[in-house]
């Protein structure tokens, strides 16, 4: 592996829109850096300006001020044909020419390299085959785009970008519209691609948990356009992650790395003991009911969970009376009932 080289960097970049004499600044003073072999996820709430940043970095939209350097050269100095050899895109827009085969779409990725008629050389064909292989799309290369599922289609668009053979690939929300397994697969694919091909990959996404796991770097954009960068773990620990998405109604749970919907308002406590996995899920069910699980010494009801030959059993000790349950649902119902009796 070669030394990580800076592929894309910005200096004092200001992004936004200019209409007439007014400039609407979305984010300013951006000093970003993207190295080869790195997978960078751009995260931020809706409306923070992720798309504007992506479009500006991709050269689809002019920057208000500042510099963007691509491979040691100013982005503005690139001719379109040269830029196409340095930077490829995967966009959110659905491609409408469903009549094209997968092979044809991926072959279009070679456009910057082919002659005036677009005839493919052996090298072009080799790159196309490689792109199809690594994205695992080769098996349906003769199918038409409109016959593919969203997940397959997205992989084909990635294959097209790979065939374009650029040092930098920018993907705008590549996991949108995909189901969970496809999302995970896509992120995993991008992660391995960055490592194996030594390309720099930048993507914007709303998949916080996937981004936390797969990204080498996070670019966090707050609602007001302020940018924080760093490795995911640092951003979690210094609270930047939480503050970027701060909103009432949910909070970031540092121990699980997920956002939790209701901050618990504990009105009642139960002692919980047993196998860790079982305790975890039971705790979740209880939390939804507003029941805390502090293992306090005081006189509270207790739940013991046991598992024997795939049979899970919850033993509820309600101030001395023990009842056994085999489903969480009946346990929760029963607790609810007992508590309402208590209140009346």
């Amino acid at each position: 592996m070669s030394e990580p080289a800076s592929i894309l960097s910005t200096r004092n970049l200001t992004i936004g829109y200019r209409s007439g004499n007014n400039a609407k600044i979305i984010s300013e003073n951006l000093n970003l850096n993207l190295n080869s072999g790195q997978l960078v996820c751009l995260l931020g709430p809706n409306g923070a300006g992720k798309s504007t940043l992506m479009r500006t970095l991709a050269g689809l939209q002019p920057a208000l001020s500042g510099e963007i350097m691509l491979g040691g050269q100013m982005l503005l100095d690139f001719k379109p044909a040269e830029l196409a050899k340095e930077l490829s895109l995967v966009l959110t827009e659905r491609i409408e020419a469903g009549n094209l085969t997968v092979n044809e779409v991926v072959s279009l990725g070679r456009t910057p390299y082919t002659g005036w008629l677009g005839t493919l050389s052996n090298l072009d064909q080799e790159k196309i085959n490689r792109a199809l292989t690594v994205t695992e799309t080769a098996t349906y290369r003769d199918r038409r785009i409109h016959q593919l599922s969203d997940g397959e289609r997205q992989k084909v668009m990635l294959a097209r970008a790979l065939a374009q053979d650029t040092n930098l690939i920018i993907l705008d929300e590549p996991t949108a519209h995909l189901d969970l397994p496809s999302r995970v697969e896509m992120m995993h694919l991008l992660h391995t691609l960055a490592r194996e091909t030594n390309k720099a990959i930048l993507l914007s996404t709303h998949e916080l948990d996937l981004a936390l796991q797969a990204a080498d770097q996070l670019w966090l954009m707050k609602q007001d356009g302020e940018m924080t960068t760093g490795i995911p773990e640092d951003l979690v620990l210094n609270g930047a992650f939480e503050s970027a998405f701060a909103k009432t109604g949910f909070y970031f749970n540092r121990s699980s790395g997920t956002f939790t919907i209701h901050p618990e308002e504990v009105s009642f406590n139960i002692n919980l003991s047993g196998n860790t996995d079982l305790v975890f899920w039971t705790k979740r069910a209880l939390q939804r009911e507003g029941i805390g699980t502090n293992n306090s010494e005081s006189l509270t009801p207790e739940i013991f969970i046991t598992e024997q030959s795939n049979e899970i059993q919850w033993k509820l000790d309600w101030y001395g009376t023990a009842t056994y349950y085999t489903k969480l649902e009946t346990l929760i119902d029963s607790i609810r009932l007992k508590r309402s009796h208590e209140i009346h």
Partner: protein
Amino acid sequence: MKIDSAGSAGSHKLIIIGLLVLVVFFFLLDILLGSVKIPFSEVIRIIFSHESDNTAWLFIIEKIRLPKAITAVLVGCGLSVSGLQMQTLFRNPLAGPSELGITAGAGLGVAAVMLTGGSSTSIYAIRQLGLSGSWLIIAMASLGSALVLSLILLIAGRIRDNVILLIVGVMIGTITLSVVSIWQYFSQPEQLQEYIMWTFGSLGGVVQDHLYVLSGVVAFGLILAFISSKALNALLLGENYARSMGLTVSRTRFMIMAGTSLLTGSITAFCGPIGFIGIAIPHITRSLLGTSDHRILIPATCLVGTVLMLVCDIIAQMPGTQTVLPINVVTSLLGAPVVIWIIISRNNLRSSFS
């Protein structure tokens, strides 16, 4: 995988050879049939050795039927390729020269020549103009087409909806036509009649110098289209993807618009507004070949367009009778059902474009 792609390329080749055979067949048939019966052997002899014992036959074939058949070929190629380019450029299956009012724009250009000429001569009189006049007409008709085309392109940038764009096209066409109508209102009845004849469309009457001019311009437009085929392919993925693959979209768009305007403008100037060929042929070709690759589609569209235009011309002559139907009527009778089929089979629409 290799076998598959080779197989589809092979079937493309077979279809194209089949189309070539059909072109030759219908070309000969078009010359053979007409209100005057001329034996087949004599027709062949006139075409290849330019001589015949019957001078009337020689005149009919060389001065009337042959130019008319060649015009049919030019119209078939030109209008269908301009339709194909427009459908890709607008990413709209309902785009076509007559549907979006481009031919109306060409008509306006033609009318403008007559108006600025200071005389109230009719559009039909262009056939009486000399060589320089025909260039002027082509230039004005192409400019008229380009004007309408750029107007529609401007609107298409804002509106992504297929049907709305089509309605806008029809409206712009209507505006253009009403401008022509104002001019018509102040013209003499005889000239009006001639204008109406022009709107029926006619493949006849494009002879000698005019035919050379038309052939030259159509050939240039077709070459322009073929050069753009790589760009057209990239545009299939949408403008943003095309740009990311190194395409200068504004330049490409200009090339395509120039080609389309030249093709539509020149053909409309000489043959009148011929409807439905531009929209129908690309769809027929696409479903025939099952590909969106313009490098194959452009030549194939030319061939299919030629075949259908020749067939329309043969039908228009009503073989065996003395009557001749206006060509526009025949193409509309044939083309309108195709457009209805496109709208009804949303599947076909979706698979190609949306």
